């Protein structure tokens, strides 16, 4: 393709550094020429290398698997690294994920929130007490069950679901779809010794599953297409039963 046929893109990027006294949020516009196969990762990297070395954003894997680069792209949360500019218009608006602590420009502290969420939900396999003898053959698991667990385990903690969540916008202590999906995942796992009564302790309130208003934007923006609607409904049924029991 000849150079002349490439579009000129205009990226309107939300700039704000909360650590700089007197700084105020503003949109800054960068112009650059589109290239074949250009992703927002490539575009933003080029802007930082050639136009504005102060621009803050987060990319790690640049392959859509680590969840670092979630941002609001033309109004919707998504992974910037795997968003091809050719699927966007010539005017592209980028903003940091809302809800999370802003580090600067497009960089937000999803990691801190995710860690706190994991601690609060005790989001790890709670093993049964006793010795684990690593020389022995592993415990068996139904192959279909392993696949179902992996299906939920694919969450990359990017924060898109929480950023898209209207409930979280009003309730800052809401665990979000990411948290409820984790509960569904551990509940499915026979290696986790917890019971529904234990799970009720962490998500059985309005900051947990009962706070969810089923707006399902989480489900619709999830870059990994996790079955969040189904899983949240599942957790709700189990916790409601636990609450009645």
């Amino acid at each position: 393709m000849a150079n002349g046929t490439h579009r000129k893109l205009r990226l309107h990027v939300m700039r704000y550094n909360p650590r700089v006294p007197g700084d105020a949020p503003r949109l800054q516009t960068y112009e650059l020429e589109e290239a074949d196969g250009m992703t927002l990762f490539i575009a933003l990297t080029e802007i930082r290398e050639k136009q504005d070395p102060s621009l803050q954003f987060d990319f790690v894997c640049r392959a859509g698997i680590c969840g670092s680069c979630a941002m609001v792209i033309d109004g919707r949360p998504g992974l910037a690294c795997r968003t091809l500019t050719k699927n966007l218009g010539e005017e592209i608006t980028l903003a940091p994920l809302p809800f999370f602590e802003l580090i600067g420009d497009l960089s937000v502290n999803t990691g801190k929130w995710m860690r706190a969420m994991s601690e609060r939900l005790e989001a790890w396999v709670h093993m049964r007490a006793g010795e684990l003898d690593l020389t022995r053959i592993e415990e068996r698991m139904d192959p279909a069950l392993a696949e179902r667990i992996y299906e939920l385990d694919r969450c990359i903690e990017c924060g898109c679901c929480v950023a898209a969540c209207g409930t979280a916008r009003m309730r800052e202590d809401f665990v979000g779809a990411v948290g409820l999906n984790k509960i569904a995942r551990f509940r499915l796992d026979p290696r986790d010794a917890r019971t529904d009564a234990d799970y009720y302790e962490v998500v059985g309130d309005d900051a947990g599953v009962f706070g969810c208003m089923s707006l399902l934007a989480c489900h619709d923006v999830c870059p990994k297409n996790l079955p969040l609607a189904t899983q949240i409904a599942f957790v709700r049924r189990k916790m409601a039963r636990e609450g009645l029991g």
Partner: protein
Amino acid sequence: MKIVYTDVLVIGGGLAGLRVAIGAKRRGHDVVILSLVPAKRSHSKAAQGGMQASLGNVIKGQGDNEDVHFEDTVRGSDWGADQEVVRMFVNTAPKAVRELAAWGVPWSRVRPGDREVIINGQKVTITEREEAAGLIAQRDFGGTKKWRTCYVSDGTGHAMITAVGDQAIADRIPVHERTEAIALIHDAGRCYGAIVRDLVTGELRAYVAKATAICSGGAGRLYRVTTNAVICEGIPTAIALETGIAALGNMEAIQFHPTGIFPAGILVTEGCRGDGGLLKDADGHRFMPDYEPEKKELASRDVVSRRMEEHIAKGKGVKSRFGEHLWLDITLLGEKHIRNNLREVYEICHYFLGVDPVREWIPVRPAQHYTMGGVRTDHTGESPTLKGLFAAGEAACWDMHGFNRLGGNSVAETVVAGMIVGEFIADFCDRAENAVNIPTRLVQEILAAEQAKLDALVGGRGTEDAAALKVRMQEIMTAKVGIFRDGPVLEQAVAELEQLLVRSRNIGLRCKGGGANPELATAYRVQKMLKLALCVAYGAYTRTESRGAHFRQDFPRRNDAEWLRRTLATWKSGSDTLPTLAYEPLDVARMELPPGWRGYGAKDYIDHPATAARAAEVEAVRRRMAGADRFAVQQALMPFAHLLPARLRGRNERIDERF
């Protein structure tokens, strides 16, 4: 000035770092993990295909054990590996997989009965055993005699780091996210922690620790075309080098993965070929059997990558706007398999290429993938020269990969080394003589010196552009220190990199602000990366043989007589423009598997003078002990169990091998 005190400072929050931290913490030591990014976002996550461990559950893995895994790994390394370490590794790998299974990794499991697989382009029906039902399954990977790679669909690294990261949270191990170690604190041959920059505020802090563990992965970003994440810049490896005391081993040993998608370089897993995918050229011809009749697409990575480039050089590449590439054809695996077992591949092709791999071929070309070299350690993971400095995983030259790593052995190394080195670090911290006794004044001086360097960058009058220097370095590395290497070109590369290093001392920043200042980060990183690049390029130039992934067109043969040695690079003085190279011989007389032909790739090599004698000796032992159990034979050839932490010495049970 802020000083954080802890027992163990782990630099890097990937699989190796997390597992080291868990090991030390469960032995009762305080641990702090430093990580550039939230731990679960580390590059370990990108390991798609799987982790090698000789469980032998699937029918195609029947008969697999530590001995077979050992031989595959040593052959894969082209005899560059430390065989004792390989033994430690293969004996611990099954334990690591089983530990992860208990921690929640949803390993893909064996379904008993018939199933259709693709082997060598043909549909074959294999029958899994009833007694293996529900046990962890294995898939085929390059360079292995048995199906040995345990996997979770094609998100193995993701599932592993999720489970290990969760355990670290359960153990209340603090991860100081968005921090970067920019210098090691050391005094009189002893390492005491690191000077650390907070990437959010820009503030410097000192972390003082009894033991410091570098678990920061590889340095793929020395190259322009790499499968590595953007954070894989090798900075912690470089700060070890900058001590002038710790040595880096075999930095010239760089692996190129055959199937980076073209042109972005994003990895598609070896599992594609392991599961039956084929490499094809511009004519749609499957060319690998022409070069490697035995292993075909599943020869080791160095061999396949080289054959691919060779084939492109013959004019068989597919021409495109961005250059030439080849095809990876997985259409024969069928939609169900691709959508279930190669799901990430499907997504990557869909999002980045707009290609549907169920129906279309994937454009691929080899891309930088792995740093076999790293901080040289002994079998405990400790630097032999800088006490208290440990390393594990890709950042280390422990050295189980030698000059070429097998697919599936890297994630395996992260957790195995994590288990082993974690124990040794705990032992180290247990010993009273290893208490921290560095004067605070000294820590302050070191911190002040680092602050002064940063201030000079921000406030100085330099004129060089950091980002431009970095791009130039990456281009030189990809163009001149790549898959095919040649003396004169390497000499040129070294000279150019030296110039870049000199220029990097005159970097000026456009962005003078304090705080995060990403340009400042680029500036100090490129200074360090150039030193690593020089270790790679100069090591490659000096090593006048071909071994594993290091291929010299002017010296195409492996030369055991002169080069059965590990390169050790140190950086003696800040004003140097080249590393100081030394060589550490590998002792043929103690090898369980004396050097020979790998079973694939070039067959001609120059023997070490001691090889014949050792081969005869090994042969004699095997003859004399014919009929004895394999453990006794192994023990007679090269005892290693004493090297392992006591709790990891046990024999591994299998369905065909019970104790």
